[in-house]
């Protein structure tokens, strides 16, 4: 029997998801409606078939999300009969517990509501769709990654990860982030989405949108991302490679309307996914490392 690389990655991820569900009291899955979290949810439905996915999903809503992604999120939760827990950046800002940044980007502000939701719900394990190919800080992340009572990641004090034996032991106040698709690349994700026929929010595929150019990316015209004087608005055919906060996520010019088109486009791409479309990762060379140490996804 010939197992393909996708079969092997799928089998590994399902093994990890089942281990976490067996060993933890209150796991939850981070679900934003982005492709990696959609993939995670798909793997979870396969892991527990014919049973229901045995944990709730958690979304940290920046308040600047694309409306079609929120609609997709709600529809998916409804379809699978899941419980959705939302941590709201906007509510923290309204209460004066978080301050809006000068650059208007809300992605780095997600850490506080995330840790709050984890503590409030007493989640002891949180599944994320992080992949090691995304960033050099992620490249050193463990599949099960221990966080202290402040949600901090300590890269110098990580447990060795041996064979496929995962050590999820933690003490009161600590929790574990679990990354079952650590070993997948962007291309693996797209090939698997194609193979399994997984539905995604429509903005992952080429569509016409009013955009303007900033920092070499196409930014959507919207309430939170208005063009500045001199930034010309155009109607262009674009798609998104990552789906984050509208204020910092850029689109790429694309003709890819099917998963197959996207796979071809990603295979031929000369830019990394985050480099092409995430302004927040361009802040500094160690932007992700700093956010992760503070408890980010």
């Amino acid at each position, binding site marked *: 029997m010939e*197992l393909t690389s996708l079969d092997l990655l799928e089998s590994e991820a399902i093994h990890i998801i089942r281990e976490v*569900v067996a060993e933890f009291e209150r796991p939850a899955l981070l679900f934003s409606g982005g492709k990696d979290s959609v993939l995670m949810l798909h793997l979870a439905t396969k*892991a527990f078939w*014919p049973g229901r996915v045995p944990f709730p999903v958690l979304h940290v809503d920046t308040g600047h999300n694309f409306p079609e992604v929120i609609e997709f999120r709600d529809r998916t939760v409804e379809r699978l009969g899941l419980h959705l827990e939302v941590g709201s950046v906007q509510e923290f800002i309204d209460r004066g517990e978080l301050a809006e940044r000068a650059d208007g980007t809300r992605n780095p502000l997600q850490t506080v509501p995330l840790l709050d939701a984890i503590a409030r719900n007493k989640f002891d394990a949180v599944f994320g769709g992080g992949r090691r190919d995304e960033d050099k800080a992620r490249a050193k992340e463990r599949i099960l990654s221990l966080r202290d009572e402040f949600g901090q990641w300590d890269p110098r004090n990580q447990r060795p990860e*041996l064979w496929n034996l995962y050590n999820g032991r933690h003490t009161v106040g600590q929790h574990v982030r679990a990354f079952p698709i650590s070993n997948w690349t962007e291309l693996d994700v797209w090939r698997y989405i194609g*193979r399994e026929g997984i539905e995604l929010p429509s903005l992952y595929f080429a569509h016409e949108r009013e955009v303007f150019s900033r920092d070499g990316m196409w930014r959507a015209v919207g309430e939170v991302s208005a063009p500045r004087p001199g930034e010309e608005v155009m109607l262009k055919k674009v798609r998104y490679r990552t789906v984050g906060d509208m204020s910092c996520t850029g689109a790429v010019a694309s003709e890819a309307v099917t998963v197959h088109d996207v796979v071809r486009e990603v295979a031929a791409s000369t830019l990394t996914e985050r*480099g092409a479309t995430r302004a927040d990762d361009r802040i500094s060379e160690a932007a992700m490392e700093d956010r992760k140490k503070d408890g980010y996804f």
Partner: protein
Amino acid sequence: MSTVTETPLAHATLFRFATAGSVDDGKSTLVGRLLHDSKAILADTLDAVTRTSATRGFGGENGSTQRIDLALLTDGLRAEREQGITIDVAYRYFTTNRRSFILADCPGHIQYTKNTVTGASTADAVVVLIDARKGVLEQTRRHLSVLRLLRVPNVLVAVNKIDLVGFREDIFRAIEADLQSVAAEIGLPQLVVVPVSALEGDNVVDRSSHTPWYTGPSLLDVLETLPTTDEVERGLEPLRFPVQLVIRPQGALAPELVVADDAGAPLRDRRDFRDYRAYAGQLASGSVSVGEQITVLPSGRSATVIGIDFAGQSLQRAVAPQSVSLRLSEEIDIARGDVIAATGTFGEVSQDLYAELCWLSSKPLREGSKVLIKHGSKTVQALIRAVIGKLDLDTFGYEAASVLELNDIGTAQIRLSSALPIETYALHRRTGAFLVIDPQDGNTLAAGLVKENLRD
């Protein structure tokens, strides 16, 4: 969705390998070279590296062959850059026309045993680097000893910086002979030895014209054609299936439960799942087929496999390392931590064992310590009855010891709080391995390899 399979590599296999080397062997450069030449580095990353390289004096106007500092391609965390060290294993991904690779890039200088053990535990192959100017060092012997102990199926040695010894065959042959004699001494099979220059690219991806006397394949050619651990062991080892979970949804059935045949006609409806009960897990070794007799360990009760389910698909057969759910003919008491094995392939379960412990913690191991042991999907308490001896990695012999410290490898006698289906690591790479965990803070203390099953 079948259109996607037209893209190359949709069916390629996955190959995991690790690198091991001493300081300044050029490991970062070799990894950078593999990533660069296999086009795994995209333009934005390459631009950043080229800019940094220029500020460090690379790529002058004299047409130097080296435009970028390849080692920067594997540059790690800011915490590491600030201290000029590598603190942890980093995972890298690249794809060729033949395979997808997962590379565990293990730092060489500090805690090399810990990092080599970690990287090697999941590797199908390990590439050990040595400097052609220095030949076989003490650390090379130690690396090879650790790899022998962990039974890494394929060990390759890259004799790097061959350009710095003028591409001389006699130097390479002398090192190669040294390596093969060390391998024979410690019981490793014949090594694959390749002369390379990571900096100039000789024999890394393509065969080099500078070494006409070397007729073997390039390093990447070897990595592209070696069999994976599962391919090697699948046929040799009997079924071992540690049960992760019992799937018994009763009322909590998935809302979209459809079981259909290939033509889309429904085979089962929701009522048929009312009494559904299956055992979920990943095959650690071997294969399983519908109709096969199995025995549950440690209880020793037997049953027949009546179904292999995977997310609504009914399979006739599954092989390691697939994740599936097994349905059995008898309602026997099976819980997480039990192992389903092919009937007649397992002796007796035991509460006592000897094991080789690779000690990975700064907290030393002493006789009488109480620890936790995670084996397969089961965690039990254990008592370290005695530390028997410590492995001398230079001679691959044992010396007396009563304490194991960080980076030591030694033998201990262990008593378990309940019997486990323990097997020797020499025969079962996956089911002979376990973790030693600190019951106080939960940290991983050691990688354990079962040496011998003490039955009396």
